[in-house]
């Protein structure tokens, strides 16, 4: 028998050939490796949400090993002395055990909660980026809708998760949620009773929320996120305008290796920040809230921040009760408008916005280049209006804490919120619009007259003028100014942003390498590199 020589170095190659023989993956793999992604810091905001979702899955699975989704009454006998002997639900007791009697359980629970807050925060910040740069325009309307749905599904995920420990604070939240469902005309009581399995709180809601929180909602989130990413991949990422960038191309880096490496590193950074938050900052100290009891409440009972705007709208709502005098009489309680109708309108408006704008502008073209917020004052101003609306509501959601800590009257805070909700958004619209126009004008001014140099010259007639550095060569205009078109990208406003100076020399205290040659402008001598220093010992020249 002839013994074949085993060639270790050739093994990966052979294996690769074997795989390709069977699956024909070489060409698709090449396409994947070659995908080009544009690089800008604001394109990384969505990744924060994606990565915190992964952390949520990881920590969440850990929590399910110890959490018991049951409302059976037990007497706590764990190691947290101030609650020993207190009757409570099994869900709350197991959450306490998770915090005190499972080694490292508390850091996991806190990481999970912080990751949830970060997930929602990153979604909102990412959404603002997409909105203000016009990235939602055709062909990306679908992805905008999926993104808005992700916010609302994330909202549900957060609320169900927040309710699971069955502590005093979350139970109060659940009580309000049941009241919100109850307030829906006609079907309210049926809906509430069906969800809670009878009168509030019943004995089953925690198990139902549990399965929604660990299976149904994450499944939905996963599906939506996959679709979201798939569409980004298929439609290719938008990019900022700039040299060489057109509506028909993507200028950036190929996905592998550098881009992917940076993504991997960023994931670790997000994970690390969540771990630091989870360890160093206490979140939701359920042991202080006590078990949920229908007669116990704490001052400053707030939901998590992404629900706070609803709490705010509820607080600001005047006591307008609608009575319908038919038969025994029917009621639409004031709670219905700010908690059911308002979110409904918000969902509708936010998902439909791309179509509303396109219709308004009669714009049916595809857009792959982003817009600077200042260049679309109307949209930016509408966005500012929406943000200020949301902020007023969110602040009102915590108005008792603000009232207490800043010693303002609580009633005054409520009135300030009511007035603010009506006054601040239009004001924000106006101010933003004017700001955008001002910024636009300044851009045009710099393009036409050049950058301010800070040099003041006295004219023979005694006037003082500032010398401007034109951005382009003179082209026969009497004042020596050239005409430059605005291309939708940053206009240099300072001398050291002009790009005439060439890339900075690397090295912190002394140059560690020869500077690259500066681009040569016609009519100017090339910039001489600095003389080399002895520390530069590479022995290789660049050219």
């Amino acid at each position, binding site marked *: 028998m002839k013994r074949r020589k085993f060639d270790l170095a050739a093994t990966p190659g052979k294996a690769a050939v074997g795989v390709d023989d069977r699956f024909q993956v070489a060409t698709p793999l090449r396409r994947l490796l070659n995908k080009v992604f544009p690089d800008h810091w604001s394109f990384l905001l969505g990744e924060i949400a994606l990565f915190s979702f992964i952390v949520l899955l990881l920590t969440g699975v850990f929590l399910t090993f110890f959490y018991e989704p049951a409302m059976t009454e037990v007497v706590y006998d764990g190691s947290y002395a101030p609650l020993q002997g207190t009757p409570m639900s099994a869900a709350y007791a197991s959450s306490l055990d998770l915090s005190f009697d499972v080694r490292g359980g508390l850091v996991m629970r806190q990481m999970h909660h912080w990751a949830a807050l*970060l997930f929602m925060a990153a979604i909102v910040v990412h959404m603002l980026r997409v909105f203000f740069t016009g990235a939602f325009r055709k062909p990306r309307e679908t992805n905008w809708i999926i993104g808005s749905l992700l916010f609302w599904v994330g909202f549900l995920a957060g609320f169900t998760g927040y309710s699971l420990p069955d502590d*005093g604070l979350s139970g109060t939240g659940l009580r309000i949620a049941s009241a919100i469902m109850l307030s829906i005309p006609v079907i309210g009581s049926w809906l509430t009773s069906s969800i809670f399995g009878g009168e509030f709180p019943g004995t089953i809601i925690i198990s139902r929320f549990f399965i929604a929180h660990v299976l149904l909602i994450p499944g939905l989130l996963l599906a939506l996120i996959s679709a979201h990413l798939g569409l980004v991949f298929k439609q290719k990422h938008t990019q900022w305008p700039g040299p060489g960038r057109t509506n028909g191309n993507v200028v950036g880096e190929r996905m592998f290796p550098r881009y992917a490496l940076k993504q991997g590193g*960023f994931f670790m950074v997000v994970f690390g920040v*969540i771990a630091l938050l989870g360890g160093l900052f206490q979140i939701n100290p359920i042991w202080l809230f006590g078990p949920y009891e229908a*007669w116990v409440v704490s001052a400053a009972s707030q939901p998590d921040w992404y629900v706070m705007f609803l709490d705010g709208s509820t607080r600001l709502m005047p006591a307008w009760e609608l009575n319908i005098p038919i038969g025994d009489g029917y009621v639409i309680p004031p709670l219905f408008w700010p908690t059911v109708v308002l979110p409904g309108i918000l969902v509708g408006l936010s998902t439909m916005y791309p179509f509303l704008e396109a219709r308004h502008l009669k714009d049916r073209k595809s857009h792959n280049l982003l817009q600077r917020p200042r260049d679309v004052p109307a949209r930016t101003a509408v966005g500012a209006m929406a943000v200020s609306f949301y902020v007023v509501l969110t602040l009102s959601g915590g108005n008792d804490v603000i009232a207490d800590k800043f010693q303002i009257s609580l009633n005054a805070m409520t009135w300030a919120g009511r007035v603010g909700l009506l006054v601040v958004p239009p004001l924000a619209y106006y101010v933003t619009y004017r700001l955008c126009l001002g910024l636009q004008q300044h851009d045009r001014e710099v393009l036409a007259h050049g950058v301010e140099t800070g040099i003041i010259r006295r004219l023979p007639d005694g006037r003082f003028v500032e010398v401007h550095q034109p951005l382009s060569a003179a082209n026969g205009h009497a004042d020596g100014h050239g005409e430059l078109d605005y291309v939708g990208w940053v206009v240099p406003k300072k001398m050291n942003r002009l790009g005439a100076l060439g890339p900075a020399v690397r090295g912190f205290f002394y140059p560690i390498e020869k500077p690259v040659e500066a681009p040569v402008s016609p009519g100017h001598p090339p910039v001489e590199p600095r003389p080399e220093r002895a520390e530069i010992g590479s022995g290789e020249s660049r050219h």
Partner: protein
Amino acid sequence: MTSDNDRRRGLLARLRGRPAARSRGRRRLGAAVRLFAALMLAGGAYTVFAPGAQAQDNPPLTGAAAEGKALFDVSCVTCHGRNAQGVEGRGPSLIGVGAASVEFQVSSGRMPLARQEAQAHRKPPVFTDEQVRQLGQYVQELGGGPVVPGTEDNLHEDGNVAAGGELFRINCSQCHAFGGGGGALSSGKFAPSLHPATDRQIYAAMLSGPQNMPVFGDNQITPEQKADIIAYIQETLKTDQDPGGFNLGRYGPSTEGLAIFLVGIVALVFASLWIAGKS
């Protein structure tokens, strides 16, 4: 229901590692104290106690009341009037408020009032402990009322934090918040933070119901239960550095929401600025 409750308490006691029998004995003692306090309170508000009744647990300090009157006539008479009958529009009558009220208001610096506003604020006290006692004695002898027992500073020595926690959540947390940090009430009034309060001040506040705080007399919350509540406040809320890192001021989810933006999002935005920046 009662048997249910007995079982619960028994369990509680067992978990605390304290024999149930002793707890029962304590309860009987508690009942006696309650009865006594009820008798005291029944006549408390509008009748003047005979000095002899006072003598039982608070032997009169000879001359202390007179010293207190001297202080009163200098510092308090403007608002509360001669003989503490009150001045319309300035200060309420102090007849029947008891030494507990004086002890709370004066030792926490709330009185003398700096200016008329929605609610008095805690300030560095003007009077020494001795002077507070003299003032209290004076007001006590004017019209009777609730008294914080003894002169000891520590009133929660054998309080039970678990029982105190339960009482705290049902009676206190709605205004003073789960962490004892206080909360807002209507129109600029507020429930103050419990953190600077001493044992005696908390006790006095429960007994006397200062300003808008409801009164928790000894019939409702026995001295023993008061000790439990104080133990929970002092040992769990104030001393116990509970696990999980910096507590963000215990303002609930509001500061957590602030933190995720100010810490989480800001840190990560800086990271992404660096990642995508031109090197």
